[in-house]
């Protein structure tokens, strides 16, 4: 054990070269794409305003950041995301688990959900805008409404997929209903619930960007890129898209990966 650890831990020239190679392998494709972009931009096939070279975009990105405008847009978007997804997580898990646990809840809710869920979330946007006006309220409600469905479905499946043998073992050891739920059903269903939350968050993120374009919110990344179109401000638009990409990546790679590593991966319930 300790020997193996020592071997791994030893500073090794080969290991250093290896990481360097990996880094190069991951950046190389981006360099190629960037170079192509530059060439096309400088050839002037498209007007510079519509197809700006990368240095223009970078300059704009820096100035927008320096003036705090990009940060303001980002913070507003993230807050809306948290509010909407928070609603979805709380209600989604509660409804899904209730459906998994109670036959009656399942019979009553499943038909309603099966009618509402298959319609693409954004299609509800105009309805929400009509009913709740413009601005934050409809945006957050729509994000919550839409991203609740994957959470509901997966929590429901997860609770139903809890292994019979775990229930039996726990019952044999004297677990009552309440503890069966807390100590066996919830952790047993957790891989599914986390999957649902992850899908829900991804959904919330996509819907939010779109709904910010439609709901005439004063700040937000969706609004930034949509508004930039009117002024043919491709630089600002690309800056917004870059931030959106980075945030999306961060949500996926850090938030959920961390939670999963700490729970279901550590327990060996998923690979």
């Amino acid at each position, binding site marked *: 054990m300790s020997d193996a650890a020592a071997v791994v831990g030893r500073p090794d020239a080969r290991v250093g070269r290896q990481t360097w190679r990996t880094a190069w*392998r*991951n*950046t*190389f*494709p*981006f360099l*190629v*794409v960037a170079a192509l972009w530059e060439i096309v931009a400088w050839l002037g096939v*498209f007007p510079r305003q*519509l*197809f700006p070279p990368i240095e223009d975009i970078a300059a704009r990105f820096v100035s927008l950041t320096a003036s705090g405008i990009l940060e303001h847009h980002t913070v507003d978007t993230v807050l809306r995301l948290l509010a909407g997804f928070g609603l979805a997580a709380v209600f989604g898990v509660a409804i899904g688990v209730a459906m998994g646990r109670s*036959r*009656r809840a*399942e*019979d*009553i*809710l*499943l*038909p*309603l959900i099966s*009618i509402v869920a*298959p*319609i*693409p*979330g*954004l*299609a*509800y*946007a*105009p*309805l929400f*805008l*009509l*009913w709740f006006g413009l601005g934050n309220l409809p945006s957050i409600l729509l994000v919550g409404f839409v991203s609740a469905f994957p959470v509901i479905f997966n929590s429901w499946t997860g609770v139903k997929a809890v292994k019979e043998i775990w229930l039996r073992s726990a019952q044999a050891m004297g677990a009552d209903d309440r503890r069966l739920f807390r100590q066996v059903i919830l952790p047993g269903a957790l891989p599914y619930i986390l*999957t649902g939350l992850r*899908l829900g968050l991804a959904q919330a*993120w*996509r819907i939010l*960007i*779109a709904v910010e*374009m*439609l709901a005439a919110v004063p700040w937000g*990344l*969706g609004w930034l*890129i*949509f508004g*930039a*179109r009117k002024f*043919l401000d*491709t630089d600002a*638009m*690309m800056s*917004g*898209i870059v931030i*959106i*990409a980075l945030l*999306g*990546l961060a*949500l*996926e790679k850090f938030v959920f990966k961390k939670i999963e590593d700490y729970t279901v991966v550590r327990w060996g319930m998923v690979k």
Partner: protein
Amino acid sequence: MDDRTRSLIRGGVSIVCVAALYEIVARSGHFSPALMPTLPTIARTLIASIADGTMIWHAAFTLYRVMVGFVLAIAVGVPLGIAMARFPRVENFCLPLISALMPIPSFSLVPLFMLWFGIGNTTTILIVLYAATFSVVFNTWSGVRAVNPLWLRAAGAMGADERRLFWKVIIPGASPFIITGMRQAFLRSWIAVVGAEMIAASDWGLGWVIFDAKEFLNTDIMLAALIVIGAIGYVFERLVFGSIERATVQRWGMVRAAKG
């Protein structure tokens, strides 16, 4: 009364109750009928718009855009996914790019594509393509990589050459993933097309109808279009992909390998 009938009755009752509740609120006069049309009004609008062909045309436009984008996504995605799984060079080049592009919501490209390609079919089809391709690539790639090495060895021992190995083992072996990828891709295309049409289409398309109806407070048309969108999505998801799955991977006893 057995469990199944009880479930059906409860389900029916719950739908009827919700519908009745809506109807009561709609008729109570608290909200303007323009915002909350009664169910019969919605039904009449739906039937009328189908009868005079407008809804059919809208649906046809949307389906055209979605199908072109979806088919292009498969034409690009399946070969790319296979190439990535078979050739490390392709994988090394494409994987970082795909991982960076995948988290970008397709809607965030709508304004950019509108600048570049204007309003209309090109933009919507490209958005669909963007939304659908990654699922196809990713699932194909995972599927080919997940082909059981035992099958390859067994087929090799039985004298299969490279070409037959590919067509007779790798493709069928990867098919649960590929089909899952297509299913996911269609779902995403369907979501993307509605969104893209709202912003970047003019005059025709189900997404455009909904958004246009908002401007004129035609909530009945909006809800009628929503019903059509849901019905078409349902038909594809359940009937088309469901039967493809039943005819292939389920018959072979291979469970769906990845979940969307």
